[in-house]
């Protein structure tokens, strides 16, 4: 399969959207485009599994390489392993759901969908690139659409939130840039190629400087404590699809970068800094969970709980065991689907009640059974009910963490486990107040979900349940790739 299709298809969709005349055409173009992306992601999955089943043991499949800027040894190098495929699938799920729930956007529809598709282009490109330069290129492509999405279609303190997000993310990518240049000039040869860099050995003194730069730089994207402050503001001000993309895809760019770039090519210092990563991510997990308890606004609840859940991703990476790393990637996929669904439901509720304050709602189960059922499912997934994806992912991280017998890792694991209890408290309380109890004045005539909202929810729920019921599919995909990274870390 030709991987450039994953980049060309969104590009083509974006261009066609620009040529459309009215909002109706734009919406259908975006939907057709994202459906094709969805199909393409599954084609990639099956092609990948076929190759692997056929005994192709190459680390990266479907590799492509064009010389791009030969003077700087930059090549347009694409390729996927299991982790990339999982992330591409996640992106496809979130994009189609995001397009569907935005069906009612009336303000500047064309621009809205153009930016959404552009964002997905950046994400696909990021996940399949094997050259650090183009990886960085796609990482930055995704920043400005977020800024505009929040600033134009957002609500509340949108300008402030958009600025904060753009500047913090650009700050993160500035650190990434310096780290990449350090690797480029300090490494064994002048190259941005990920595979070449991973085969050679980067001197330890270079790693000492570049690893923290890259890890923190990518960490900003995935809400590494204490650089998580853009998350609550950004998510709560963004339009529904914007929040879904931010939390579902964009935060995963950081986790993927921490794993694939920082940890993989600089394993020595990854071991050195592991303690700090574990401490910071445990703080993020607990702090996020406790901060969520205090929130009254549904979007803030999900935003802070995202900080907590993304902490598991970094915890899994910091633990440096194969199981924990697999768990980290699973958590990225699971959280991506779950949080996208959560934001979608919040958007649907807000569109009808015009409030996101938990205490102003009540008894919504009676008027919108479908939406509240989805809210229950996503809430249960978030608190880790077995049978849904959240349980599988977090459990894998915990098992991986427990493989370290020393007290430090044990304590970190136990502390992270505590957050699950806290999660149960805030999720159940929020859902209970929203859906149960007597119905509030004026909410009697609200309508239930429309076809587009139902479809979006069903697609995401299908993903969540599939992972929850049959986690071995995802596990088989991810763990060989995680094993390669672990091999490198173990120095074999």
């Amino acid at each position: 399969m030709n991987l450039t299709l994953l980049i060309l298809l969104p590009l083509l969709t974006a261009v066609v959207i620009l040529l459309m005349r009215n909002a109706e055409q734009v919406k259908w173009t975006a939907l057709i485009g994202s459906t094709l992306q969805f199909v393409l992601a599954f084609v990639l999955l099956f092609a990948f599994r076929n190759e692997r089943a056929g005994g192709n043991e190459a680390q990266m499949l479907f590799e492509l390489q064009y010389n791009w800027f030969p003077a700087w040894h930059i090549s347009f190098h694409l390729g996927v392993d299991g982790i990339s495929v999982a992330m591409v699938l996640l992106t496809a799920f979130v994009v189609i759901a995001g397009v569907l729930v935005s069906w009612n956007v009336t303000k500047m529809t064309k621009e809205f969908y153009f930016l959404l598709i552009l964002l997905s282009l950046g994400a696909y490109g990021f996940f399949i690139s094997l050259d650090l330069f183009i990886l960085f290129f796609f990482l930055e492509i995704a920043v400005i659409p977020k800024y505009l999405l929040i600033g134009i279609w957002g609500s509340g303190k949108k300008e402030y939130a958009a600025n904060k997000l753009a500047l913090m993310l650009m700050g993160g990518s500035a650190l990434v840039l310096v780290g990449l240049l350090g690797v480029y000039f300090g490494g064994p040869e002048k190259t941005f190629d990920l595979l070449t860099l991973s085969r050679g050995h980067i001197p330890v003194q270079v790693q000492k400087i570049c690893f923290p730069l890259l890890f923190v730089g990518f960490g900003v994207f995935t809400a590494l404590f204490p650089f998580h402050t853009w998350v609550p503001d950004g998510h709560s001000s963004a339009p529904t699809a914007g929040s879904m993309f931010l939390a579902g895809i964009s935060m995963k760019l950081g986790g993927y970068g921490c794993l694939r770039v920082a940890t993989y090519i600089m394993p020595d210092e990854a071991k050195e800094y592991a303690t700090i990563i574990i401490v910071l991510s445990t703080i993020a997990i607990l702090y996020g969970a406790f901060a969520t308890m205090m929130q009254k606004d549904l979007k803030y609840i999900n935003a802070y709980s995202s900080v907590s859940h993304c902490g598991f991703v970094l915890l899994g990476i910091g633990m440096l065991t194969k199981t924990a790393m697999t768990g980290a990637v699973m958590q990225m996929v699971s959280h991506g689907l779950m949080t996208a669904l959560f934001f979608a439901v919040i958007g649907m509720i807000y569109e009808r009640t015009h409030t996101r304050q938990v205490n102003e709602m009540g008894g919504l189960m009676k008027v919108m059974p479908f939406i509240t059922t989805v809210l229950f499912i996503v809430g249960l997934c978030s608190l880790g009910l077995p049978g849904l994806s959240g349980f599988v992912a977090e459990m894998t991280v915990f098992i991986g963490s427990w493989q370290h017998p020393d007290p430090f890792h044990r304590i970190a694991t136990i502390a992270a486990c505590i957050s699950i209890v806290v999660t149960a408290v805030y999720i159940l309380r929020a859902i209970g107040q929203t859906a149960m109890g007597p119905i509030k004045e004026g909410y009697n005539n609200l309508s239930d979900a429309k076809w587009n909202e139902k479809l979006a929810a069903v697609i995401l729920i299908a993903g969540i349940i599939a992972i929850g019921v049959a986690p071995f599919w995802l596990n088989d995909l991810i763990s060989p790739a995680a094993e390669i990274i672990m091999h490198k870390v173990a120095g074999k």
Partner: protein
Amino acid sequence: MLNDFLILMKSELVITFIIFLLLFIKVGKGMKNESLLSLLQFLLLANFIAGFFFNETGSLFGGLFTTNALIAFQKSILSLGVYLISLLFADWLKKSEHMPEFFILMLSALLGMFFMISSGSLLMFFLSLELSTIPVAAMTNFDLEKKISSEASMKMILSSAFSSGILLFGISLMYGATGTISFAEMPAMLDGSPLQILAFIFLFTAFAFKLSIVPFHLWTADVYEGAPIAVSSFLSVISKGSIAFILLTALYKVFAPMHELWYNMVVLLSIATMIIGNLFALRQQNIKRFLAYSSIAQVGFILVGISGNSIAGTSSVVYFVLIYVFSNLAAFGVAGAISQQTGKERINDYKGLYQTNPFISWVLALALFSLAGIPPTAGFFGKLFLITAGASNGNYFFITVAALNLIVSLYYYLRVIRAVFMDKNEQPIEKINLHPSTKLGMIICGAGIVLVGLLSWVYDYITALTM
């Protein structure tokens, strides 16, 4: 001999020919501005295209004038800039009573820059620098009825005279210290004696004045604000570009033996220029002053590239200037179109611009994203290669400062984006009627901003010329 003369000096001869043509037209019956403008646009386009043919390496007049493929390409970039200016500001130009004079002045300045890039000795350099500066001072005062323009022109001429004085002083000291003014012979004579260092510092100061490197930047914002926008854009793009080109020759070729000395100077000045330019740009309300400080910050980035080694530095700076021509001219073009029709020049006036003028809003957004270095615009590649060139010395503190400055600059570029796309305004700027050639200019700029980066052969071509 005559053939050499014709071929090696072809760009200069073409420009001279156009200047004389304009003189005849002015003295003779005269033409309507509209048709004269079309003729000039055609001639400038022809000049730009002709710049790609018959480029040979050679020197004339005993080494006073040198040229090669890279220099020819640099001249083409400048020609392209002038062509774009003639397109973008068509409305303003054709309303001016003295349009032929404006072009005579602008082309004389361009001629000066061509000679400057090609100069092979300090004397030639000084002469051509003067030729490229004095007409610009007259252009600055082109809106005769505006007081602020006269003030700007006065500031410009005074600061140029001052820097010329310093330059001449440096040249005479350098002659005294090395016994030569020829660029070819000078490197062998440089041994780093205190007198030579002093002379070099004076020479560099003159460059710093023209490039508005901090702390010699104080004239920039006032002049840009007072001058007609077409002239501000010429100053910020064409003048800066030409000085950056000759600075490359001076530092990498002539003063190569003093690398240690100028490397530290360039690093310090670059940090100061980026920081000061960025911090001052944060608070500007007038779009011209805003672009003035942003262009100061851009010069800081050019210095980052110059601090690198010769090949990477040269190619990344030339590449960046090419991109800068498209991006900055697009931004100035939009500001000019709005100012021409409504007289509004404040960023706050731009609020809600997107509702009434989507096309120029997108052009402005592309230009500003390119200036900020956001992919997929060409500015991303330009900035990144400058920084990569600068990083080749392993000075990571410097690179980190440069990277952090990218964030600061993003903040103020986003301010304009926010005004245009997000802020609400009861009375947004009305629909701007663009002159067809202005529209063409904007489309060319937009295409350049998008394509120059993604098509990597542009950079390969420049690198091949550098080798």
